[in-house]
């Protein structure tokens, strides 16, 4: 499927999808979304582990105050996923420890 661009608009032509990568994995996300929203829409809800307890963290305050959602964007470390808008070709890296690929779910 091709992604049409609107050549007549004076603003940035808004493509139907934006292609980014998260930890090397390609993702197609919606233009105009925050990195945090784009990941959440893909059911990725945590992308950072805390220093002491290695607890998973993702979005919390959603407005740039709590710094829980930090990740690396195009090589720039400690960016707030709730504030950075996705851009074509963006490389997003989390800092969660490797997760085993198959593990049965269960109540903690």
């Amino acid at each position, binding site marked *: 499927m091709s992604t049409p661009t609107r050549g007549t608009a004076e603003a940035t032509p808004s493509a139907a999808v934006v292609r980014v990568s998260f930890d090397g994995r390609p993702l197609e996300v919606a233009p105009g979304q925050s990195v945090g929203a784009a990941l959440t829409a893909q059911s990725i809800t945590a992308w950072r582990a805390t220093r002491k307890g290695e607890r*998973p963290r993702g*979005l919390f305050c*959603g407005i740039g105050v709590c710094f829980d959602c930090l990740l690396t964007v195009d090589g720039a470390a400690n960016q707030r996923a709730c504030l950075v808008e*996705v851009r074509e070709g963006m490389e997003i890296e989390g800092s969660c420890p490797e997760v085993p690929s198959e593990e049965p779910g269960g109540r903690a």
Partner: protein
Amino acid sequence: MKPIVSTDVAVLGAGPAGLAAAVSAAETGAAVVLVDAGAQPGGQFWRHRPETVVPEPDGRGHHGWKSYLDLRARFDAARHQGLITYLPGLQVWMAQQNQPTQADDAGFTLRTTPTVAVAASGAGVGAQAIVARRLVLCPGGYDRQLPVPGWDLPGVMAAGGIQAFIKANGILPGKRFVIAGTGPFLLPVAANIAEAGGKVLAVLESSSPTAWLPHLRAAAGVPEKALEGAQYAAVFARHRIPYRTRSIVTEVLGSRILGMDRVSGVRTAKVDVEGSARPGTERIYEDVDVVGFGWGFTPQMELPLSFGIETRIDADGSLVGVVDERQESSVPGLYLAGEVTGVGGATLAVLEGTAAGTAAAGGAVVPEKTAARHRRFAEAMHGAHPVPAAWQDWLSPETTVCRCEEVTAGQIMEARESLGAHDARTLKSFIRAGMGWCQSRVCGFASACLGAGPGVSPTAESLSGIAKRPLAAPVGIGELAALDADDH
């Protein structure tokens, strides 16, 4: 050396108060610079989808959108005439009063840093220093939080964070929600979720509708709020959202999905008037993927405090700035508007911003009867929705209080009992509570309460001790090092 912008009036913040201040100052005849951390005008309250993607937002899910459109049109017109210089995408990390050189009006300097390293448009401005004769600070606020077991699980969000997510992205952060805390703000959050297609399993309000009875006179003074309330009631009825009063979340439950812990449910209880859980009222909601908490709001006080302004504790227990009827603080030439003078909502913020902007530009300010009514309403709202006195009983010793530094309630109580750490600043230096990335913005109120002890309200000294943040936003070492070189 950084570019320096000089102006008559600098306004910080492009939310309801800041937009009104900038527009009013410009219309009074001042040259204005508006600096804002956001990428486009609106602040948190009128946050909307990027205008590059949705050029003409319809204002669905918003309140006072007509007021925004009016301010926005005047803002755009003033920018077009060159009266307002708009600097979006910049956070102020330091604000100073200039040394008086010759006469009066030494003015103020704001030092800024880009909010994000990678701006989507690529057109963001670089760091700037702003020098202004008068300064209007409208930094707004954020959700006040109380820790509860499990609140650090992914899927738990600030109620305002869910609201911002929906407004900015046009999608939902999950499918099945529980919203809990106290205050009227929980209603629009739940309503927006339901209108966007999400399932709200329950809204848990720790207070009770009868708490409003002593305040009915104040509420009647602001009829538009009653109308707003009726609109929410209709949305709640249409989507069958249960609104449970005198109810709290006692624990957020998690499960491990693909090796990663996240929210799966909540345990709730009914509480008495103090907020103590009543035995035998426990209930569990399952298959929850997002839990939203909001316990009122905390005004963003670090920049006002950096000038040493006079402060007070407001009716909701928040530290706020003292201002006169022209919104001027105890520091001449420094004006405050919006939540930093008392949490009171967007309508009041616009009225205050209008007064502050007009006064900062040298215009005459007419005292507003409407503002007084809104202040009385806000006070009534705070009185009816207090932070429950017994909230500390909800914690277990293992409950994380400081999310950044992973400090538990047990560690804080231990420091209080054995080290005599009774205020938030001492707790910060002894056990690193509030020392991390967020600089105690999230846990500051809670750790101040825990230091004070059960049922005791934190003092203004304790709250201001931790809300003083020498660097108001994280900056690179290069920007710090450039301070000397930049000085003029």
